[in-house]
């Protein structure tokens, strides 16, 4: 596997290594961002409860509108949390529905801006027509940053998910490159001549022996929202959104949506269910991994060159947190979370 780094020269890699020791993924609390806090089909006229970091969201519908508050609508102590920074003291969060999710603004409500909602080009903006079978909910026993590291990493598939997506180690060519802004990191992998994965063969009906694949993962750092666009040829595109919403430092929740409307039956119905196989496989290592990152240590994690995207992610997260700790919650000029990412995801580019 060849890692090509567009914007990082070798000298800065060494500097990054020295700074990578203080990686405390459970302690990130990045603000002024939108979190997809619930599937829209989970929100009814009866309040449901969700957590973002340590903030409680009660969400329900009143007529056509979605409402989110920091205390239960039936709670007799309704005034108790009215001094909440995240609601500006009103008790109400700013929420919006888009792409099949209810999004909640996490941060200073005065800075809420719908233009900062991520662009998800393969889902309908109004969320209409997304079948329930394309939605899943998986909980991970680790903080969201470790989960994103897992997703950015490419070398674990053969070991953790071999029977589902395996064979990547046997490809003819395998190239990885990544790019970033101050608010996002995008990792693209291009593989040729890899054995067709079991899921593609036995569920997707791909009869060829080998296939090419291009997979782009686009990560929004503040919210750990991951937008993934894998394309398989022969085969299908399997676009999906995985928002790793932090539920404190110990757990994270992923309300995943797939955009499989162009895939054939039964692949489109069964592919989302693979999350219930792959998720626990990842969880089997992340669960014991998580507590080992609670405290600063005097020993570094070792890295290989295949860890370059993950190392960059660590670096960017720490820079962002540093800025916010200094009171700067703004988005830098290089970052536009709402920008069209169709081309970045490779939706219009054939591999």
């Amino acid at each position, binding site marked *: 596997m060849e890692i090509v780094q567009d914007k990082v020269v070798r000298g800065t890699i060494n500097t990054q290594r020295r700074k990578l020791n203080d990686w405390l993924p459970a302690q990130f609390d990045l603000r002024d961002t939108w979190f997809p806090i619930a599937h829209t089909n989970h929100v009814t006229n009866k309040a449901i409860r969700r957590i973002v970091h340590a903030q409680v969201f009660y969400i329900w519908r009143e007529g056509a509108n979605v409402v989110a508050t920091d205390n239960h609508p039936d709670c007799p102590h309704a005034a108790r949390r009215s001094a909440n920074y995240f609601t500006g003291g009103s008790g109400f969060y700013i929420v919006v529905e888009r792409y099949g999710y209810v999004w909640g603004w996490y941060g200073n409500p005065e800075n809420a801006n719908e233009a900062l909602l991520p662009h998800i080009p393969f889902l309908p903006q109004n969320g209409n027509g997304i079948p329930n079978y394309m939605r899943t909910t998986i909980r991970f026993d680790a903080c969201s940053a470790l989960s994103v590291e897992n997703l950015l*990493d490419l*070398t*674990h598939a*053969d070991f953790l998910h071999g029977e589902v997506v395996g064979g990547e180690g046997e490809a003819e060519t395998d190239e990885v490159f990544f790019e970033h802004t101050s608010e996002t990191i995008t990792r693209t992998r291009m593989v040729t001549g890899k054995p067709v994965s079991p899921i593609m063969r036995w569920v997707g009906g791909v009869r060829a022996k080998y296939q090419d694949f291009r997979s782009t993962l686009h990560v929004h750092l503040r919210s750990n929202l991951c937008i993934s666009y894998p394309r398989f040829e022969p085969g299908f595109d399997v676009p999906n959104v995985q928002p790793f919403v932090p539920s404190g430092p110990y757990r994270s929740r992923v309300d995943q949506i797939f955009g499989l409307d162009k895939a054939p039956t039964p692949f489109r119905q069964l592919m989302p269910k693979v999350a219930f196989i792959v998720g626990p496989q990842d969880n089997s*290592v992340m669960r*014991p*991994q998580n507590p080992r*990152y609670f405290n600063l240590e005097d*020993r570094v994690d070792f890295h290989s060159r295949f860890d370059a995207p993950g190392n960059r992610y660590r670096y960017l997260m720490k820079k962002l947190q540093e800025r916010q700790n200094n009171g700067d919650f703004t988005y830098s000029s290089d970052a536009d979370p709402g920008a069209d990412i169709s081309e970045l995801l490779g939706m219009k580019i054939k591999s």
Partner: protein
Amino acid sequence: MLQTIALSSQLGTNKTLAVNVNDLPIVLFRDKDDKVVALEDRCPHRRVPLSLGKVIQGELRCAYHGWTFDGKTGACTNIPNLSAKESVPAKLKAKAFIVQEHNGFIYWQRSDSVHVALPPAIFSQAIYLAQNEGIANLTLSMEAYRSVLFDGPEMLISLYGIGITDYFLGDVIETEYSITIDRAADWQLTGRKPSWKSPDYPLIIRSEIFKHTTCAKISLLNSTEQVLIEVYLSVVPDKRSTSRVLWQARSYQAYFDSAPLLNKLKCSWRKNLVKVHEILNANSINKLMLGPSARLQSINVQ
């Protein structure tokens, strides 16, 4: 110091075994010569327990990214997907420990700077009728366990057909290697405490704690001090003040020669005369009167 951390029988070929000594996680496995090796149970790459991985040709491959480690040195011998021209940097290592297999236990050496001699044989006799072993995980700290072994061993172990009293026979005897206390016992098919009215208790329970180790032995003797049963216990301090007791036991012909007829008949078909309890009666332990264990505090037993 040598610390027992597992029974040899717990570790099969091509398997991993995760154990803790206090908060230190250790993974055991066998190398290609079937010798036990030990690493810190933590991959130096992303801190995932190496015990989740696989033993491949005597080396341990991490379950997450496939980094592979030599058990003796901890050196990383393979990172998947490196080209043929690339080598693994020498600094990429897991922490390795010295371990040895002996007496049916796996011993871990706390310090790797000085070679420590292996302990002597744990049983007094080579010829026995039955030998058993087991593990008990307890919500009792190592220190508390050993003090109860001294003051009330019947709360921790049962010997089939034997009732243990709390009638101490003499005082604590201290030698260079151990500290012991005897108490009376009697034949009791029900295992209940013998009647206090009985004029004679023909058996002796000897509790022995070995200094400079975390090991102890409970021996059942007859009135001529022939050894009938021996139970060797190694108490390993585990996480959150729990303990893991690794035990081996032998029963000897003298047990059957000494036993009353009814006991002989009932015991003749039993393969295991020893039970080391995992579920303890906290109320009884709470109420246990302080006795000879008071002497443990004044001597160096570890």
